[in-house]
């Protein structure tokens, strides 16, 4: 098992931004019927989600979280050395959304800045990248931003996924310090299962794919531009590979579930969470559920769980076990300590970037070719 251990680096701030628009699952009764909604809600645990308005992007939500974090923690803009943005729903195909956030925040030029394309394991991989940068460079800090609007590629007629995903953005600040407190990571990937969660068209592999909607093998209606999730394969992954990694990680660290104050896991659905709690023998009081109010929010889940549980808590030194798992397939765990004073309460926003690039396309001369 590969374990990466870092010291002299700590998380000194977390902020989370949610869209103000709240949709209850009952909103979808006219579309899917009462019985389908009841069954869906019982199994997934989702009662409501926050969904971005049509102008809001993942980059906007991440930016709002970053702005909140910079303001509340009084982080000097000119001191930020790296910006990483994790998303599966970038603002544009090009450039990286991190470049836009870099501009909007007014960060300096001497600043590393790039996107990571991941979903539900994105926070773990983003943290790992941030720790690795700080461990191996003269940089003093990293601003790690996540954002996703997963439902944007889900077919509105997909009864198993359309109500499952909410939207969110988060920001985490990591800084070098003099502390010997260790943070441990383990990451796994299985590209062999890349088809398990996929949007087949919309990038460059199937550039001329038809937009025709068809009835898929699971009886849901989608086009190739929609997210296709092999639900049963993903389910098997989450009840086998994921708890196995958690157990391997604990064994390697010579720790037990009793050594932690809270388990912040990606929240795919309530059934899977219950299975993980049972299989790991975790005290339910140490487990915080957010999926009931916010749905599956991809790479944002772990910081949201922390902000939802500890956003108004002061003076606690928290020993945390983090776990993210999803598209790729990709999964990872972190053993980390965070001060509750560094976790900000949730904020809600409708704001978006009012950018105008229409001048690029003004017709000075009509092209007749």
């Amino acid at each position: 098992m590969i374990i990466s251990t870092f010291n002299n680096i700590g998380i000194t701030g977390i902020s989370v931004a949610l869209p103000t628009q709240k949709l209850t699952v009952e909103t979808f009764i006219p579309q899917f019927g009462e019985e389908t909604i009841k069954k869906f809600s019982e199994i997934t645990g989702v009662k409501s989600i926050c969904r971005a308005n049509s102008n809001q992007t993942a980059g906007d939500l991440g930016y709002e979280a970053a702005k909140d974090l910079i303001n509340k923690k009084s982080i000097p803009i000119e001191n930020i050395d790296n910006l990483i943005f994790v998303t599966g729903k970038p603002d544009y195909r090009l450039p990286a959304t991190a470049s836009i956030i870099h501009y909007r925040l007014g960060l300096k030029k001497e600043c590393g800045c790039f996107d990571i394309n991941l979903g539900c394991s994105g926070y773990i991989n983003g943290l790992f990248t941030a720790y690795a940068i700080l461990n191996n460079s003269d940089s003093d800090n990293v601003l790690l931003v996540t954002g996703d609007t997963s439902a944007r590629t889900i077919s509105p007629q997909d009864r198993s996924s359309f109500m499952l995903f909410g939207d969110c953005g988060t920001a985490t600040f990591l800084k070098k310090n003099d502390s010997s407190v260790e943070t441990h990571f383990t990451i796994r990937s299985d590209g062999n299962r890349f088809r398990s969660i996929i949007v087949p068209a919309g990038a460059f592999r199937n550039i001329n794919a038809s937009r025709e909607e068809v009835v898929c093998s699971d009886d849901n209606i989608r086009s190739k531009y929609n997210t296709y999730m092999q639900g049963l394969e993903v389910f098997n992954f989450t009840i086998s590979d994921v708890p196995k990694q958690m157990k391997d990680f604990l064994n390697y660290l010579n720790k037990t579930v009793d050594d932690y104050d809270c388990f912040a896991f990606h929240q795919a659905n309530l059934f899977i969470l219950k299975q993980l709690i049972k299989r790991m023998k975790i005290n339910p009081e140490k487990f915080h559920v957010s999926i009931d109010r916010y749905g599956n929010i991809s790479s944002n889940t772990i910081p949201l769980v922390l902000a939802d549980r500890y956003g108004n808590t002061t003076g606690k030194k928290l020993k945390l076990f983090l776990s993210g798992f999803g598209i790729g397939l990709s999964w990872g765990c972190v053993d980390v300590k965070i001060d509750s004073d560094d976790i900000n309460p949730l904020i809600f926003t409708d704001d978006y970037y009012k950018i105008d690039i229409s001048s690029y396309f003004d017709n000075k001369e009509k092209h007749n070719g």
Partner: protein
Amino acid sequence: MDNLKKYNEIFMEILKIDENQLNEDLKIRSVSTWDSIGHMSLITAIEDKFDIFLETEDILGFSSYIKGIEMLKKYEVDF
């Protein structure tokens, strides 16, 4: 209630199917209601109604109506 009747009722209620569909042809995805949500609902109901906790390997192997019966026999559920 005998165990087969209890098992059958779980399938009929969750998958919305008739008793005559409960045979060796009933497998994951063979009816539209046995999707991931249906699968998780079946596992929840089987664990609740038979008061057992299924091992990971057994859940991974639970791919049909018949395999579910074989799985339950391992937990000393008599059919």
